């Protein structure tokens, strides 16, 4: 119980600290929303009119930082997220988020899960058959691919599969000429458009899982209880999954919880390269245009997602591992 209270209060304190930083740091960036809007309208429109457009959407250039900060805290917690004062001028932030959220969750979330599952299975097999065929080339290849920048892989895949071979679309989340709906054409189009960005992420993220899993397996396989299982004459398969892998996977599980937390912040670069309208892309736009309302909501969501998954990972570890409970 003491553990739960301590973790929860730590969670609340971190959330408050992060939200305070989220408020102040963007406002210390050079420029302001008015200057950004003037630049977008190429100094053509009357600054007085632009300022009054922005204030009609809730921008208060002259209000003091402290009162603004308290309104900000209240608004964030009550869900009064306001309207964008950047590129999507006047659009409610809530709409922007809900528009982008499913695409990011779908693409990045699903890819993260797939990478975790595939990575662990491959890691288990490679670690079990140490020095085998798989193990002899996989780790060395992965050391390379895991460290390639994913925007670069993305551009390479576009060049190969979209521009040269013309097999797969390189941009958008679905063919914009199809009306969204539960039609097979639409679903097929969504899947088709997800292939390249998903592969890009998979290629770069799967390596980490395989490498850690393989190394954990190698240590675990040397443990006494595995030798014991062999002595009992259990099948290889049973030992591999139920004895070795089950224990070797522990550190990877908390890593997985954390990487789920980072799904929301998406992959700004992947979404940018593939013209995929998710949250990461919205963040880039918000920062480029000093769009404080959108930026602060995005940062808050990212913070909450990461903190919640850390908390869950903590609780999960304690539940799985009695040693952690004792240290509590």
């Amino acid at each position: 119980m003491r553990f739960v209270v301590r973790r929860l209060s730590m969670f609340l304190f971190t959330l408050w600290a992060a939200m305070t930083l989220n408020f102040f740091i963007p406002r210390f960036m050079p420029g302001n929303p008015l200057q950004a809007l003037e630049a977008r309208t190429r100094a053509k429109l009357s600054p007085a009119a632009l300022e009054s457009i922005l204030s009609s959407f809730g921008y208060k250039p002259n209000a003091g930082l402290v009162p603004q900060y308290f309104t900000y805290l209240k608004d964030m917690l009550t869900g009064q997220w306001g309207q964008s004062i950047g590129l999507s001028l006047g659009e409610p932030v809530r709409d922007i988020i809900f528009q982008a959220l499913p695409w990011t969750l779908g693409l990045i979330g699903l890819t993260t899960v797939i990478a975790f599952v595939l990575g662990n299975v491959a890691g288990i097999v490679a670690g079990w058959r140490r020095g085998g065929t798989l193990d002899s080339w996989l780790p060395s290849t992965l050391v390379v691919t895991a460290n390639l920048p994913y925007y670069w892989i993305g551009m390479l895949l576009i060049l190969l599969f979209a521009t040269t071979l013309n097999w797969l679309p390189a941009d958008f989340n679905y063919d914009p000429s199809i009306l969204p709906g539960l039609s097979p054409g639409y679903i097929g189009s969504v899947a088709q458009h997800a292939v390249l960005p998903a592969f890009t992420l998979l290629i770069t993220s799967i390596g980490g899982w395989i490498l850690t899993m393989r190394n954990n397996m190698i240590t675990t396989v040397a443990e006494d209880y595995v030798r014991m299982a062999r002595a009992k004459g259990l099948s290889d398969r049973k030992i591999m999954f139920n004895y070795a892998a089950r224990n070797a996977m522990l550190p990877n599980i908390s890593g997985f919880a954390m990487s789920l937390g980072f799904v929301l912040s998406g992959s700004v670069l992947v979404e940018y390269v593939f013209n995929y309208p998710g949250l990461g892309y919205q963040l880039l736009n918000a920062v480029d245009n000093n769009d404080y309302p959108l930026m602060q909501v995005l940062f808050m969501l990212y913070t909450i997602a990461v903190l919640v998954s850390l908390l869950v990972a903590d609780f999960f570890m304690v539940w799985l591992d009695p040693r952690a409970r004792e240290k509590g």
Partner: protein
Amino acid sequence: MRRTKILAAGAAIGLAAAVAGCSSTKHASDTGGSSTGSNTVPALSANLKAGGTVTIANETGATWNCQFNPLTTNQQEANGYLYESLLYINPLQSSATPTPMLATSYAWNSTDTQLSFDVRSGVKWSDGTAFTAQDVAYTFNLLKQYNSLDTFALWTAPSGGGAGMTSATASGDKVTLTFSSNASVFFYDVANMVPIVPQHIWSTVGNPGNYTNTKPVGTGPFVVSSCSADNIKYTANKSYWMPNEPHVQTINYPAYLSNDPANNDLASGKANWGGQYIPSVNSFYVSKSTNFHIWSPPVANVSLIPNTVQGPTANLNVRQAIAYALNRAQIAAIGEQGEEPAANQTGVVTPTFNSFLNSSALSSSGYGAQNLSKATAALKSAGYSSSHPLSLTVKTVTGYTDWDADLQVIKQELAGIGINVTVLDEADNTFTSDLQNGNFQAIMYGPPAGPSPYYELHLMLDSANDQAIGSAGQGDYGRYKNSAVDAAFGAYAAATSPSAQQQALEQVETYMLNDVPLIPVVESVDWYQYSTAELAGWPSAADQYAQPSPWTYPDVEQVLLRLYSKTAQ
């Protein structure tokens, strides 16, 4: 690589146009010369069959919000498609007669303080209600009532840089706008840039600045058929007032978040109308099909703006040395890969505004071509030489890779005479802030264009725009102060004849050559790519009937009205 043009970027052509609007005679305007009279329709390609789809590939940088407020937030996707202005004025042909749109003719009084329009009869809003002169007067009065809508400062007093409109009234088919002083330089904005909205709808929507207008009702040639965050689909307005128009039946306007995907779709033929920078456009795009074409009319300058009040560039000799030392043709050929032409020191964009260029003054000034001996001499009078070089920091925007390439060439050229250039790439926000605050020694910048050289030069040189270094100014970023130049701008605005305007502008050109308050490097162009595989009727170098980029409004309407499907014929 990125050249972002968003939202009101189409307002690109800004503050007004004098040239077309300065005479006091009444114009029964017509196009194509086929018909005249007070209520004629612009004669376009008649007798063409309907059909065809336009797919636009133009980086918009954000997904669509499916709102269509033409006055504030959605100018780019509403104006020209759904809403129309009174006249269309072609900034590329500043001496041409305006094309009548919702107004059939216009007239100025002798002092250019009163402008009246005859409003077209027989036009219907897309909900079936009749369009009247009341709607026009209502729209202009709406701008007065809500100053967030008055983006061209029409109701602001002339002392505050506005047009000084004092009233807008309708009587019968006539609308009369009154101004407190000569407003001819605002003619372009008043007649061409203000979209007319229906009174019967807008009078009931509360604050029109925030109105989302998700079910737009306009007079334009298209209506919204469906809209999602990724795509706007427009279809032809069946009750459009121009007979037999539009020919094209569907427009798809996907929301491209960055240039590369848009460029790929143009190169694969998926999209047929583009409007952004394509690196190595000839090999990437033009060579892919005989149907793929480009045309990029120059509209403004990309200049090095020297800080004229502090730092080394406050010294005229240094500015002269830089202007003499640049080989602009080389910069255009290497830095811009020939996709943007070289600029000249008068600040007049050629060939678009050739008629305003004082070419004899340019050649006698010695700035016509690179002149290294003059450059070295000028730098020597400023106290610098190859053995005692000047260090100069030039700021630019991160992501404009062509400007970076230009600056590399500039750096080499200036190193030859004894100026060591350091290039500083800044993020958008920092760049804009430094530009407006005058926080630079020299800065690379491309201002918006206008329908004559007046608009760019006025923005960049009139000291009425001045602020102290450190406070944000809305123009004259180099803080150049010269009362003679200010007076020449005043004379241009008050001029009631083209020759008086020409005279005023030539004076400004003279000071551009003598004082070097700006150093134009290359000319910025309207990026434009089009495919003739299915559609014909595109604007081209041979037929410059409108600014050709899909993001320039209201010009986009002129293009859409002329396009037709080749296969449907």
